[in-house]
């Protein structure tokens, strides 16, 4: 019997989707924005699709004093505002009956005992076998305390096939450098087996990110070209239109390198650069991803000027509206050197990618929101149609758009109609929305369902988190040493600083406009 069917012979071959196991989802930090904006709308959509287990409950836990009714009202408000589907009378009442709330502080042992009592009563009344998922929607500094209290209160059980499961979901960022990430992971490992830990990066739940593996390994035309032999370079861009907004307290401590590069962008890099896994099992896929991180060429302090640019946005016009610079944002220190933009030239030092630069960039207050991976192929030889050195042909580019307007496009050269041979670049474009029409499920829907079914493929393993921090921490250390170039400036509403243009321009290349 497959592990995914949990010993249930009826589940074998069921075409109706992932089968979630009966459980209670406990959200620690349930009064926060993530619960209202993402988690509860995701659960609501799963309920509407009949994807939740037959025996299921959600228990919110947070310091804010709320009754079950107030939690349910807050859930409804969140669903009305942020869900892709709105509440309807009958189904909503069925759903909200599964929502409960316990008030308590993360540091208070008594609160965890109260949580346990409430969980046991809820599980008994709803026929839930005691399997629990703890979603830690809390600051990284609280993770250690929280898992220790969960253990002390007997809320977490060891991972054995015979007993109900205990799983913990950790939100990024896991730490703020290698040392703190290790400390958190050590604390978690003292309580939980790695198989019980699900480190979530919502980027990995997006359809287009999942499609990366399908695109690479379900199409025979790409893989033979997927190496230094044919690829000139790769650009990965995660551009945000928004400024730091209400997240200044967090962002001042994090910056673009920690907030985006260490997790989202390096995960995308792994999916682009990994070798073909021999199976789609969680650990096989993750083994192949870690192999990429292990091959990332370190960026020592002496290489920072050559390979890394950090910058802050200044005042500027965003879609015609004047917006403040980073230093003028509320709750940002006027002398802050926190970067809102970072661009890196990275190398994956293995046989496949020898010498191929990966240009990575992310920033706030860029002209528009766009996440994409662009794979630029090498130029054709400078003979025949590419013989004019003054007017070289545009090379082929395969672009995987992650958001918005998910899809992929391929730029190819073609002949313009007419008696003369004139070459013109055209774009073959595939758009999810155009072809498939339907609204895709939100990333959190897929990811929560995966945790309920015990599938960790789309979650980060400890070694991957630490390997990516290892690489990033070296850059952070270089910046901290003071020898690195100062923080550059770029005007809000532009694609980044001139220094970033020079970083790629030195190689005779230029950033794409996503």
């Amino acid at each position, binding site marked *: 019997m497959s592990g995914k069917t949990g010993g*249930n012979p*009826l589940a074998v071959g069921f075409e*109706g989707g992932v089968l979630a196991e009966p459980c209670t989802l406990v959200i620690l930090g349930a009064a926060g924005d993530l619960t209202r904006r993402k988690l509860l709308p995701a659960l609501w959509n799963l309920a509407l699709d*009949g994807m939740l287990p037959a025996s299921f409950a959600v228990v919110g836990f947070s310091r804010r004093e709320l009754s079950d009714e107030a939690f349910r009202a807050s859930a409804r408000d969140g669903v009305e505002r942020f869900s892709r589907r709105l509440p309807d009378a009958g189904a909503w009442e069925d*759903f909200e009956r599964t929502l409960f709330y316990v008030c308590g502080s993360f540091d208070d042992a008594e609160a965890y005992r109260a949580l346990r009592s409430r969980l046991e009563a809820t599980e008994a009344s709803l026929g839930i076998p005691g399997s629990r998922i703890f979603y830690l929607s809390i600051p990284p500094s609280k993770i250690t305390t929280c898992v220790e209290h969960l253990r002390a209160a007997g809320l977490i059980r060891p991972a054995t096939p015979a007993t109900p499961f205990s799983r913990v979901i950790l939100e990024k960022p896991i730490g703020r450098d290698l040392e703190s990430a290790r400390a958190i992971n050590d604390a978690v490992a003292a309580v939980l087996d790695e198989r019980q830990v699900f480190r979530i990066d919502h980027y990995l739940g997006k359809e287009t990110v999942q499609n990366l593996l399908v695109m690479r390994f379900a199409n025979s035309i790409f893989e033979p070209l997927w190496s230094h032999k044919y690829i000139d370079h790769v650009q990965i861009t995660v551009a945000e239109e928004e400024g730091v907004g209400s997240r200044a307290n967090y962002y001042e401590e994090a910056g673009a390198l920690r907030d985006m590069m260490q997790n989202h962008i390096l995960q995308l890099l792994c999916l682009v650069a990994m070798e073909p896994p021999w199976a789609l099992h969680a650990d096989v896929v993750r083994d192949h991803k870690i192999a990429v991180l292990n091959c990332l060429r370190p960026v020592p302090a002496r290489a920072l000027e050559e390979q890394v640019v950090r910058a802050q946005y200044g005042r500027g016009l965003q879609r015609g509206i004047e917006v403040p610079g980073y230093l003028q944002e509320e709750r940002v220190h006027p002398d802050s050197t926190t970067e809102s933009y970072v661009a890196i030239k990275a190398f994956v030092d293995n046989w496949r990618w020898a010498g191929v630069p990966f240009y990575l960039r992310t920033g706030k207050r860029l002209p528009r929101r766009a996440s994409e991976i662009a794979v630029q192929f090498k130029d054709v030889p400078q003979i025949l149609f590419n013989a004019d050195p003054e007017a070289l042909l545009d090379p082929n580019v395969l672009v995987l758009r992650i958001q918005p307007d998910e899809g992929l496009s391929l730029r190819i050269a073609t002949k313009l109609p007419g008696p003369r041979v004139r070459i013109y670049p055209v774009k073959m474009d595939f758009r999810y929305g155009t072809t498939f029409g339907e609204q895709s499920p939100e990333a959190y829907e897929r990811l929560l369902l995966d945790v309920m079914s015990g599938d960790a493929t789309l979650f980060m393993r400890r070694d991957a988190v630490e390997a990516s921090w290892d690489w990033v921490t070296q850059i952070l250390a270089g910046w901290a040493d003071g020898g690195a170039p100062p923080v550059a400036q770029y005007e809000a509403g532009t694609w980044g600083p001139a220094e970033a243009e020079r970083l790629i321009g030195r190689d005779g290349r230029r950033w794409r406009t996503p």
Partner: protein
Amino acid sequence: VANTVTAAEASALVLPVRAVDVEDIERELHGILFEPSETAETPAEVAIRARMSNLLVWIDDPNDAARLENDVGGVAELHPSRILVMVGGVGAGSDLTAYVSAICQIGEGGRRLCSEHVVLRAGRGAAHRLPSVARALLVGDLPTSLWWTSATLPPAGMGVADELLAMAGQMIFDSATCSAAYAGLPAVGAWVASLGKRTVADLAWSRTEPWRGLLIRALDPRCAPAALAGLRAVRIEHGAQATTEALLLLGWLASRLGWRVAGERPDGADGADRRRWVATGPAGEIALEARRDPAGRAGIVRSHFGWQEPSGRAGSLDVVAVDGGRLATSASDGGLERIVAAPQARLPALVAGRLADLTVDRVYLEALTLGSALGRG
């Protein structure tokens, strides 16, 4: 049987239908989408042609053509395709008429996302010409599916059906419309077996999916530890046209749980509306029953599962369909009353769902085999 979409519920925009010569279909389709029309006011009305599949739709009763019109539009909205609707038996003559249109969704910025829609209407003397027209209109490199809407299975040796099937990698049909009586399912089983390796999509099977999904979860050994191993009685109650759904659900349980159908009980048949069988499983005999309420609501309406735990204690689960696409469950211990969403897809969503899944459904084939054995008695 079909949970169809009415004109008032249809949300797709259907561009004006043009009657065209058969040989001009391709050109006219292009024109309808890409040539400026007198009514187009802004560039935003520019159309995007979307094709995920070739969908051949066979309708042998002209009266059904009007009834299915909105459903075809609904399929196009969910699974944009080049759709060729072939209506046979339009009078006794040998006329073959063609109509082109496009079924569009309005996307972001007013963009029209359009499926090409061709209707071919043939008199009895012209039906044999339909496959050749369809063959010329298939778009290469796309999956081709045949949606057989007729109330009868394609008769053996029917040239048109054979030719259409030869073009299609997938056959979509509804065993419930082809088989109103319990005894009808074996004929479906034999016909499906004759199709060889072609992918088969039975809409009656798709309609059982919410029930199967719920039963998988409610009878899961982690929720009801002794239920599956100790099942002793299963009863399925259903509406007039859901005999095949009931048999497929019983066949699914039997195939998944390793039961052998021992045969019909001596008192098994109780008129046309009740049948009882005995199956044997690893833990003993299981009493199976299907009951039809000719006046009841459509589909499967109620099911009962009784089991015996190793301690000798009896357990049970009852599931009832309630309004709003929900199923209510209640267990014998009285502590587990629950209503869960189990949305029953409308006909367009059922068809679109099958179009998107081109894999061979072995679970269905096994359920059909054992369901057919039950139908034979």
